[in-house]
């Protein structure tokens, strides 16, 4: 499904941390070894299903030109050509690939940071100030969570082409910095994690509202990491919007570039180069997941709990 399916699940925070890990073997149940083996077998089968395409991608990126479609597709070829392939990848068409990677990074990191900041400010205010129109704003934002980005891509294109901003950096960047899901998550998180006393104490001390926010926002860190991560992945994997908005190849992100290479059907950009490019393009996403893993698994966990 489009990555953008990934309007992540709206969440309720776990205010009372009642979650407990069940012990691996409950004293009350005894499991016979046959069942245990069957379970392991089923789980392993699915693990193979999920891992095989990834394995194929990794193995294929190490094969020499022309080896890709001969011999065993799921094992290494005659010689290990990963380094050559990467060099070819970054030299192809005057080094356009590194340009695409850089574009993706600018859209995803920049968009992720700005959207997280805007969403947490808005969510904080929705949680902590009872201003008129608060529920109307929140309701509208919430409805937008259910409106999938691809359906909005064509309307966005119509508006941006009307204003003449199509085929510019901003055509992709501006839609990337608005995260209704982020507002939803930060409102709920701020309501439960930023105490009212903190705000009142700050006001008594004569601190400005923004100064108080900079203190309160630290308590919202787990929610902010989750918003950033979801937004980063959503922007990095976005394909429809940038392919619609950007005709200029030097502005395109890596997803759009790779699909255009794939459509060349092997010439002049070889399939090996496309496969290597696909593998390299995944590395930043994996790195982001790994580096924020502990925060993120908590955030995602809050996502499904009710």
């Amino acid at each position: 499904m489009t990555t953008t399916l990934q309007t992540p699940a709206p969440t309720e925070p776990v205010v009372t941390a009642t979650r407990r890990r069940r012990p691996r073997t409950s004293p009350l149940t005894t499991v016979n070894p046959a069942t245990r083996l069957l379970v392991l077998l089923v789980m392993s089968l699915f693990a193979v299903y999920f891992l095989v395409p990834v394995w194929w991608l990794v193995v294929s990126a190490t094969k020499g030109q022309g080896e890709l479609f001969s011999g065993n597709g799921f094992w290494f070829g005659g010689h290990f050509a990963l380094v050559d392939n990467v060099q070819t990848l970054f030299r192809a068409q005057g080094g356009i690939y590194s340009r695409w990677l850089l574009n993706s990074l600018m859209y995803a990191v920049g968009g992720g940071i700005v959207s997280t900041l805007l969403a947490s400010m808005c969510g904080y205010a929705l949680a902590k100030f009872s201003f008129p129109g608060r529920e109307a704003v929140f309701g509208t934002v919430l409805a937008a969570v259910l409106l999938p980005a691809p359906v909005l891509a064509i309307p966005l294109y119509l508006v941006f082409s009307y204003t003449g901003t199509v085929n510019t950096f901003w055509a992709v960047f501006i839609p990337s910095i608005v995260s209704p899901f982020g507002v939803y998550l930060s409102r709920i998180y701020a309501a439960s994690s930023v105490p009212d006393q903190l705000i009142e104490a700050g006001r008594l001390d004569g601190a400005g509202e923004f100064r108080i926010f900079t203190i309160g926002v630290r308590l919202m860190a787990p929610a902010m990491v989750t918003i950033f991560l979801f937004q980063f992945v959503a922007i990095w994997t976005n394909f429809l919007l940038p392919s619609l908005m950007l005709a200029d190849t030097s502005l395109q992100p890596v997803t759009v570039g790779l699909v255009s290479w794939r459509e060349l059907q092997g010439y002049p950009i070889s399939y090996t180069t496309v496969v290597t490019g696909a593998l390299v393009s995944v590395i930043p996403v994996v790195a982001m997941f790994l580096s924020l893993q502990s925060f993120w698994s908590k955030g995602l966990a809050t996502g499904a709990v009710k």
Partner: protein
Amino acid sequence: MSHVTIRRRGRARELRRAAPFVLPFLVLFVVVYLIPAGYSVVQSFFAVKRSGLGLGGAETVFAGLDNYTRVFHDGEFLGSLGRVAFIGLIQVPVMLGIALILALLIDSSVSAGRKFFRVAYFLPYGLPGVIAALVWSFLYAPTLSPVTRLFASMGIHVSFVTDGALPFSIANILTWAWTGYNTILIYSALQAIPEETMEAAALDGCSGWKAALLIKVPLIRPALLLTLVFSIIGTAQLYNEPVTMKAVAPNLPSTYTPIMAALRSLSSNDFNYAAAQSVVLGAVICVLSVLVFRASARSVES
């Protein structure tokens, strides 16, 4: 000063306080969501009329519901809706069924190596939609696929890109890419079930599969509902996979899904019609989401 004035002053003060926090997001939200949505609705009621032989220039005129009448008589667009509904009907239950079973197995006391399985199942989510589709397009390619070759060496000839096979091939990419994500969501909900609940059930003689189906599954209904709604929305907006598949399946029509159909109208400069198609698709998705939420609310009440 009356109580009401004080309250009103208090609310005005709150508004002044909130404004600098809310406005930056709100302005952009209006620009990115409300204006495009409103603009599309307005555009969908207009049409471009060309006078004479098209030499006299074109003018935009009010067309009433003409574009919508056209949408509901457009065989290609209706066909794309049907195709997506078919893919959704086979794919969403299979995916969520697998996700539920895997989540229950990881959660159960029987499974060893749950950390490994969690990572293995979640790995496809790290491969962006288009990249996953790209990888599968190689695995499906009739002459190049290592899978086809493997089968051929056993004397079995398969093709993943015939007209009949395409919906299933696309459904497989979706299942591969999203099952792990749903598994993790459901697993997180399972982890939140208090230990005492399961212990009490075990004391009453309810454990193993019986406990899983009778106690755990009803308790995580909200999480299951969310995965269902988002899967339905996800299928309705299908785009990346079929577009990438076109490289190996030239027989795939360029109006295969509703979004592809709307994009084709766009590329043939039929802007008003593209707007109408987008509005219809958006409305279909909203109605579906509301129906699913309603149905589930009713089943919880009863």
